[in-house]
């Protein structure tokens, strides 16, 4: 008996097919968001509610006489960082869910580049992060926030916070791939995210914190990202926080992207 060698269809073996495959899978993640708007609550309503709560509840006390209007230029760049950092954990939860539901089995049985589903997931989430950045900035503008340091710098600030999210999401991609359940990923994420964002200069000046917390704030990347955002959006020293932030971004990608890709290869 001879063995028949069946020719793979020609249309499937184009160069750069993986780019289109990744874009298709990113599109999938966007469609999922559109068909499932309640899943967007964490990047839409949550930032608005946080903004309103912190501004109106703490604004008067923290800005010492400036009222909530005086607190807004300080709060908004910080809240932007918190919102986006929180949004990154959704990436890991989503990936974990896709594996659990067998969606990845379908992808893996198709003749597509192995890495496309992972790139698609990250790209699709970039859209989610952008959305949350936009929602928060628009709410800020409605309440009277302005880019005091020029529109160009303000927009650069939005871009940098997006890039930071894309660097940080590799932590959650990795955890999403190595942990058993989506709930587990979420649990860890909250455990890390709350101390990381509240133990920072987002809501109050770092100088008001006790010494041990100040020591933590000094090394936390959140602090430098927040300083960068404030400098770009409202003015202030930029160079040092920007360089440290960029270094953190490179570091996060250098450590967690390879870990995530290794975990991904192991599971696929």
């Amino acid at each position, binding site marked *: *008996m001879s063995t028949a060698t069946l020719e*793979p269809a020609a249309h*499937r073996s184009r160069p750069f097919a993986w780019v289109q495959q990744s874009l298709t899978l990113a599109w999938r993640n966007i469609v999922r968001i559109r068909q499932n708007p309640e899943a967007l609550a964490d990047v839409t309503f949550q930032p608005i509610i946080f903004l309103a709560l912190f501004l109106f509840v703490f604004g008067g006390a923290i800005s010492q006489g400036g009222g909530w209007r005086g607190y807004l230029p300080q709060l908004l760049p910080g809240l932007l960082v918190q919102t986006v950092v929180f949004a990154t954990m959704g990436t890991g939860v989503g990936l974990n869910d896709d594996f659990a539901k067998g969606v990845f089995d379908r992808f893996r049985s198709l*003749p597509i580049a192995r890495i496309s589903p992972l790139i698609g997931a990250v790209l699709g989430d970039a859209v989610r992060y952008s959305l949350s950045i936009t929602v928060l900035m628009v709410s800020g503008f409605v309440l009277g926030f302005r880019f005091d340091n020029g529109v160009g710098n303000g927009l650069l600030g939005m871009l940098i916070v997006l890039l930071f999210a894309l660097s940080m999401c590799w932590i959650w991609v990795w955890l999403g791939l190595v942990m058993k359940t989506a709930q587990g990923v979420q649990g860890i994420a909250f455990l890390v995210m709350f101390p990381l964002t509240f133990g920072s200069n987002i809501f109050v000046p770092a100088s008001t914190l006790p010494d041990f917390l100040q020591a933590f704030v000094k090394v936390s990347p959140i602090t430098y990202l927040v300083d960068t955002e404030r400098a770009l959006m409202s003015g202030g020293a930029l160079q040092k926080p920007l360089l440290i932030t960029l270094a953190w971004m490179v570091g996060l990608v250098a450590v967690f992207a390879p870990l995530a890709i290794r975990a991904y290869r192991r599971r696929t």
Partner: protein
Amino acid sequence: MTTTNQVAIEAVGLVKKYGSTTALAGVDLSVPTGTVLGVLGPNGAGKTTAVRILGTLLRPDSGHATVGGYDVVREAGKVRSIIGLTGQYASVDEDMSGRRNLIMIGRLLGYSRTQARARADELLERFELVDAGDRIAKTYSGGMRRRLDLASSLVGNPSILYLDEPTTGLDPHARNGVWETVRNLVLDGTTVLLTTQYLEEADALTDSIVVFDKGSVVANGRPAELKAQAGKQSLDVRPAEPAHLERVAAIVAESVGTRPSVDVVNTLVSVPVTDGSSMPVVVRRLDEAGIAVTELSLRLPSLDEVFLALTGHTAEEKKSDAVLEGASR
């Protein structure tokens, strides 16, 4: 290219272990191009494991397999471009509509937007999902999900198709639809490997059958050959009074000439028969003895009985032993 004589799927000595569980203990398979192979076996026999290895989702611990001439481990990409796989559990994206699921796969396979849409429409039509096509798949019933999953595996017109229990959970109408689809695909030259728990399904669709048990192939052949080995039909008698079980068994034994098996738990006496000729005799004897029965039927052998005949033990031997011990105490 002649399709006769050529092998679409060939597996030699496949072994897969999960810790101390041996899912496959050295399985050989060979499926000629354009034919349908049925893989039968009880729960845990290793059917899904075999399908996942042949579908490149799992690597064997040892042994090797070629699909369409390509090695499933070393040339997995090429294998994927000629196969379609419908797993035992539907792998559809629940957060998208059925139509979008199909369009997405078309796009991943390199179809243009228009082509992908046309293909999606065609498949929705074929699987009677047109009305539900734009609904999010989360709202689909189990059967609809399975049909969408099956449609998903056909987007790329695969020349080799794996179906892992494709009709489990489908209503009779949908089941017939799947059978019809499989038959049409085979007419077009597709090679199909399907697993099933139903002898009837294997009988209706397959050219040959392999029976798995505990990770090994315990029998193979054409459906008719296997059934001949298993005895053709089975006569079941269920007395109204459990106390009459022994007497019914004796009557059946005398009338048929074979000792029946007695299922104490289900109050059922059954015996393999070649045809229905002994049925009137049994009815008359029971009537004379004044024993009322709630069921008297002639049926095809069940998978379990085929198993018993083929392997000398039932699929759930340990369990039924335990029940008998319990009953005799």
